[in-house]
């Protein structure tokens, strides 16, 4: 399976838990949302499991939902988005 490099970005409580702004990873080029979610919240950063149910992912600056189609490119930006609290 072909893998590509991606960047995983952390914000808010996720950044605090991971103690890191950004981390490079490699993922299968055809990974879907569920696969990315599982990879991030269970395999690579299991310390995020406690907030997983309230988080979503954004891929290349677009919010994704579990049924969203995901297209990954080399150096795609996957952001871990905890509940928003702007305003």
């Amino acid at each position, binding site marked *: 399976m072909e893998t590509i490099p991606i960047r995983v*970005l952390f*914000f*808010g*409580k996720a*950044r*605090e838990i991971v103690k890191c702004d950004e981390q490079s990873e490699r993922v299968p080029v055809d990974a879907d949302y569920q696969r990315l979610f599982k990879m991030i919240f269970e395999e690579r950063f299991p310390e995020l499991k406690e907030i997983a149910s*309230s988080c979503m992912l*954004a891929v290349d*600056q*677009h*919010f994704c939902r579990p049924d969203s189609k995901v297209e990954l490119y080399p150096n795609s*930006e996957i*952001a871990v*988005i*905890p*509940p*928003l*609290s*702007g*305003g």
Partner: protein
Amino acid sequence: ATEKEVFEVIEAISRDFIKITSQTLELDAAMKLLRLPNCGATSIFIGTTRDTFDGKEVLQLSYESYDEMAYPELRKLCSSVRATFPTVERLIVWHRVGEVPVTEASVIIAAASPHRKDAIQAVSMAIDELKARIPIWKKESYADGEHSWKENEE
């Protein structure tokens, strides 16, 4: 893009004022952008840091933004507001990041339009959408040493 499309883009940019900044948000500066002789109505919302939450003393609020995503989302937000309230002439959406002391503004949203209902409702829609869609996070630090990452209800 045709010439007409290019001009539309330029006009859209110059009528929407979007800013995510660590600087103090200045209402006077916003007012200067809103003063238009053909607009009879200006509506403004200012969100400020409160000194208490759930009975706990709040020392400070700290905001962080995913800028690369927040800016395009703010542009989309402005487009939605304009699509809903087409008479809005000027739209301002400013958000402060970093530490925001108590009573200082974290957000200023403002709209100018010929008549009042559009300006008022545009601002109301914009703050609702901002809270629901813009990737910005707020951490509240309390006098007891604890802190909490907030979650918008809507």
